[in-house]
């Protein structure tokens, strides 16, 4: 029982990441009709926004401490972050410690602008091109983006810790009446699930309750009619691309403490997120979210030792098996719309 609860929690937080990435991808599919292979790179850039924000806050001035030496025996250069200089050691350190959640301040403008620039500068020229061309150009873009990151940050993962207050494990089981240590789950991951839920709710709310969102939804359903009504749907779609980029960026930034950012983390997620989107059904936002959580939870259950004893390595292929079964029984995934990307 406790194992099931643990894996459910685990599935929820895995699913959160899948759902957030898939949500953005589906927005881009559904509104722009573009296969965006650079979406993983956007996730990665989000994570590096957290790294950059951490580095910005940790910008330091250097003093030489003659009493200590470095590895070659020279006097040690001591670095003190400016924020500590300005706000004193405690407040300054607290700001640095909370850099990951605070990096939202950086992620939203940076990713938003980047998304707009990408859409206006490149993607919009590919709306009418075959999907194959879209794949090639966005894949090329993804490589370029990740090589640029590698050039500046190297290939090694960069530790980006969660705030100390959220770094450890929470004994969830104690709240439910289980014995100690039965269900311990990292606070940050619980927070991640919560955060994902908020972001997903915000995106749906935006689409559901604003005029802008209504026009976009109408455009997703029937682009031509909306254009006939004299609405400049393209400009709105550009904004949707930016929103998709922000969602991917937020997902990446908050993921940084779970998975130390490295330049190829986007590619690791790319294939999986496509599977999630397609299992959810092309063009369906609720489908993407549902598929994200479904696959996350199934993956978590498949890694239960009891399951692996019977079916070795099932955890490595469960997602693909589920994808195949769902696509064969439901032709357009869980909630796909007819005619979207079926050619």
């Amino acid at each position, binding site marked *: 029982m406790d194992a099931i609860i643990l894996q459910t929690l685990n599935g929820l937080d895995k699913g959160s990441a899948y759902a957030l990435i898939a949500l953005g991808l589906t927005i881009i599919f559904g509104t722009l009709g573009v296969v965006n292979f650079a979406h993983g790179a956007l996730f990665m850039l989000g994570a590096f926004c957290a790294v950059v924000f951490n580095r910005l806050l940790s910008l330091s001035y250097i003093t030489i401490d003659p009493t200590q030496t470095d590895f070659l025996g020279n006097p040690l250069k001591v670095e003190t972050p400016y924020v500590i200089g300005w706000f004193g050691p405690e407040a300054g350190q607290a700001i640095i410690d909370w850099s990951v959640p605070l990096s939202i301040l950086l992620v939203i403008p940076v990713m938003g602008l980047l998304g707009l620039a990408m859409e206006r500068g490149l993607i919009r020229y590919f709306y009418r091109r075959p999907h*194959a061309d879209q794949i090639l150009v966005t894949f090329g873009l993804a490589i370029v983006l990740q090589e640029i990151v590698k050039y500046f940050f190297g290939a090694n993962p960069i530790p980006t810790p969660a705030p100390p207050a959220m770094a450890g494990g929470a004994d969830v089981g104690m709240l439910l009446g289980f014995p100690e240590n039965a269900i311990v789950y990292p606070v940050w991951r619980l927070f991640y699930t919560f955060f994902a839920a908020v972001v997903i709710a915000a995106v749906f709310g935006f689409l559901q309750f604003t005029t802008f969102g209504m026009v976009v939804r109408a455009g997703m359903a029937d682009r031509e009619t909306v254009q006939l009504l004299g609405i400049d749907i393209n400009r709105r779609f550009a904004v949707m691309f930016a929103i998709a980029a922000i969602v991917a960026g937020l997902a990446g930034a908050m993921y940084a403490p779970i998975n130390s950012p490295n330049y190829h983390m986007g590619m690791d997620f790319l294939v999986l997120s496509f599977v999630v989107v397609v299992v959810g059904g092309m063009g369906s936002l609720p489908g993407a979210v549902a598929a994200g959580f479904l696959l996350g939870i199934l993956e978590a259950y498949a890694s239960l030792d009891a399951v692996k004893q019977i079916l070795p390595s099932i955890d490595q292929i469960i997602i693909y098996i589920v994808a195949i079964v769902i696509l064969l029984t439901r032709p357009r995934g869980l909630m796909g719309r007819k005619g979207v990307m079926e050619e």
Partner: protein
Amino acid sequence: MLGLNRQDTALLIIVAVLTLLAPFILNPFPEGSGLATLNAGYPDLMQRFVIYGIFAIGFNILFGLTGYLSFGHAAFLGVGSYAAVWMFKLIGMQVIPAVLFSMAISAILALGIGYVSLRRSGIYFSILTLAFAQMCYNLAYSVLGNPNSRFNLTNGETGLQLTLDDPRILGVQRTPDGGIPVPNFFGIEMRDSYDLHLGDWVFTFSGGYYFAAAVMLIAFYIAIRIFRSPFGLMLRGVKSNQTRLYYTGINARPYTLAAFVISGTYAGLAGGLLACMDPLAGAERMQWTASGEVVLMTILGGAGTLIGPVLGAGFIKYFENIFSKINDNVLHGWFAFLPDGLEDFMVTLVHPFVGKGWHLTLGILFMLVVIFLPGGLVEGGQRILGLFRRRKAPPPGPDPEHHPKPTPHVAE
């Protein structure tokens, strides 16, 4: 000739001449000169050019003709390699049975995967093929590759390789000097090579290369025949309008399935040849990145064209193998003629794009090609040819008879 029209015969002859002369063409720079780094005329890379050419030609029969974008073709390449290595282990080092077995096994796998995946179209089809290929990859990496289990088909991460105690029932277990024998084609070892010295130039003729090149020419010829056949016409019909095909009395499914199996067999052939050139099969060959690579090759070269995929394959393999080897040492050699400060500046300037930065150059090229040459490299070639023709023959009056083809239409 050979049942081809004049244009196709010319194309086939050009390709044949180019492949035969590849050792010369790919080695334009004299040995020892700074630019010799850019030479690609060594056996391993030439073999890769033609083998990945076969892979891409086969992929194009599916994707270029029917429009079905498979994201799992690497599975057939990998299975082909494993099959060939198993033949070397069990039967002997003759390449013919190995290659035939690779083709047979991958054809069977393609039949199974194709039968299921082709029930869906568009991106649903792509994801189904991707899922199957990723399953194959993961199984090859772990369950089927555990050296301690009885079902060690793939030897996991290390890759399946030959050992001295393999049975090789129809061949020799070990060579007279105690080593592992080498794959051969009726006595011509794949590793045999012969060097031709012409002044400062050195040209290498490799047995393996010419074997693979011959297979590639056959594969290319068959592909031309398929493109020009009624079967090919039906496949293009599938891509263009399945509804119409349906109401014209044609069932698209067996056609697409046949195309899928043919292209899977091509992939298996390529995998088998890879194993012939170098008898080791690694699971990475089946990863999605490898499937993606052949997609990129085909689109980069020009999907649906005959020669495009081969060009695309050569292009990507050239970058992978040549650009990745240009280190700062080489760069300093290139720019040595410049004054010191300028030399360092040029090296710093070029450095991010070569050596460990070869991915960056490749990514930029993908974008440039797809932005400026929507038809891939083939379109680039056509444009250059067009410029050339226009310059050579200034307007002698329009001649609609000879230029009946309208420019690529933008109808939708």
